[in-house]
């Protein structure tokens, strides 16, 4: 089983991101379960959503407390919520930011993890460029597909089309593919550093 936890704020599409992730896995013939951990339902409040994927039926209903991957849609949560709670050292960490882990103040955490599994992606900037709106959720799923290697970016695109239609869907997909490429570029560069 592969468990993902998504952190963001009300209005950023955190719950929708987890749902799309589960749909992408479903489209690849896997079992998936997505559910929110609703707190106060208001714009800007911290929101958490979960997605589990497995090759067999998922019966477990507890919140994801030891995630294989953490997606952070809003880096201002880093100082507010224990977003890395239970994250394994060999887990995946994906943060929506144009800044580095050091600049975000989490250099210590990132250094303890596999550098090929930790990435910052400027998803909000990509969303603004391709969609004209600061909606990072679908964009980050494109990045997640590359980082985790668990999903084809085409499955993410198909999942986006179940939630959005027409131009909005296509712009989200374009942005998601751009995020996929950005992670690819960073990981290729990182692999070079690791090998040299």
């Amino acid at each position, binding site marked *: 089983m592969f468990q993902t*936890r998504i952190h963001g704020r009300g209005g950023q599409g955190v*719950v929708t991101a*987890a*749902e799309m992730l*589960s*749909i992408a896995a*479903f*489209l690849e013939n896997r*079992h*998936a*379960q*997505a*559910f*929110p*951990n*609703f*707190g*106060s339902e208001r714009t800007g*409040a*911290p929101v*958490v959503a979960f997605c589990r994927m497995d090759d067999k039926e*998922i*019966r*477990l*209903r*507890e*919140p994801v*407390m030891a995630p294989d991957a953490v997606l952070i849609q809003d880096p201002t949560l880093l100082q*507010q*919520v*224990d977003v890395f*709670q*239970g994250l394994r050292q060999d887990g995946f960490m994906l943060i929506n930011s144009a800044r580095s882990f050091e600049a975000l103040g989490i250099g210590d955490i990132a250094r303890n993890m596999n550098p090929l599994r930790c990435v910052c992606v400027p998803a909000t900037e990509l969303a603004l460029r391709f969609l004209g709106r600061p909606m990072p959720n679908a964009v980050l799923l494109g990045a997640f597909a590359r980082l985790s290697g668990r999903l084809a970016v085409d499955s993410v695109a198909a999942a986006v089309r179940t939630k959005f239609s027409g131009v909005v869907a296509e712009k989200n997909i374009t942005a998601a593919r751009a995020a996929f490429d950005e992670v690819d570029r960073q990981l290729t560069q990182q692999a070079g550093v690791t090998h040299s």
Partner: protein
Amino acid sequence: MTLKQIEGSQGVAEAVALCRPEVICAYPISPQTHIVEGLGEMVKAGQLRAEFLNVESEFAAMSVAIGSSAAGARTYTATASQGLLFMAEAVFNASGLGLPIVMTIANRAIGAPINIWNDHSDSMSLRDCGWIQLFAETNQEAIDLHIQAFKLAEELSVPVMVCMDGFILTHAYERVDVPSQEQVDAFLPSFEPRQVLDPARPVSIGAMVGPEAYTEVRVLAHAKQIQALTLIPEIAAEFKAHFGRDSGGLIQPYCCDGAHTVVIALGSVLGTIKDVVDELRAQGCALGVLGITSFRPFPLMEIRQALLGCQRVLVLEKSFAVGVGGIVATNVRMALDGTGQKVLTVVAGLGGRAITKSSLAATLVAAMNDQLEPFSFMDLQHEVVDRALGRERQIRRSGPVAESVLRDIGVVASKIS
């Protein structure tokens, strides 16, 4: 059938639509809202030919349901928590009159303190109102139980609640198999009411009954529940023949053969319990699980039979009767009357508190080692309770309890579980 990855609420909305309801009346309340929103959209889009009534309250929702069901229309509504309490008087009337309404309860805690999260307090508060109560373990089962519920309700002329855990199921995306219209039509005949308000053949429904016959009318209501004990498994078997799936029935035993300790629960927590039990069984623990699908009628004989041979029963319940203890456990004790089997009660998941594998495993191990109190709360913060009691002893005007406890434990928004 079509496999879909959809929200539980959407799945239930589609299942209800496949049952061709003629009247849908509802008032929105979390976590039920997505179900009736989904149905409302289908009616508006012309996909479902039904009268959709936006009513002004839950009391009105059930009152409309009573009227439309008595007029011979297949009728559906849904609610949760305070909404169910607000319609309580009409809920008793619906069953007292024997009207086959189907209602989803998206299980949620009851205030005060106000709490939107899941537990079973709402359904349990009306457990003895004369409705049949079926609890779904998964979204697939929630879909299947709704299809079975209309058949059961209309055959017996008794209303049915399908209870599904709020948020945990209603807001969860998971794979479901949605039947085709042809399949549901073949399984569920059109509504042939046992009683109907028909101008061509006038009757009145709802006579005042005095001491001369009130007991007899109530006993007849009980007789319907007893008939349901036979009909529920029959309908589940028929459902399997049509749809190829085991869904519903009275109880669902899991690894009970040879188990020394059996865990009893209702609803979605059964999945987590089965995962824990599988892991403990792999270590040699003689554990089993018994899911109760039909809480009303309560299958006393079937539960007694399923628990034959086990030494100890652990009832894990998401509600409790303040001042006494477990509700499900009290019923289970009735089923085990005279057997001498030990019944332990653990209250868990109140107001949405996460029921984790680790806490479950610790509880089960303690139970097997006879180290569990007869009545306990999983993951209770004893020190918080003790401090609050201490404040009340020391200060006369100790203030409102909920506020004082929240101040004591500090900010909780940053916690994941």
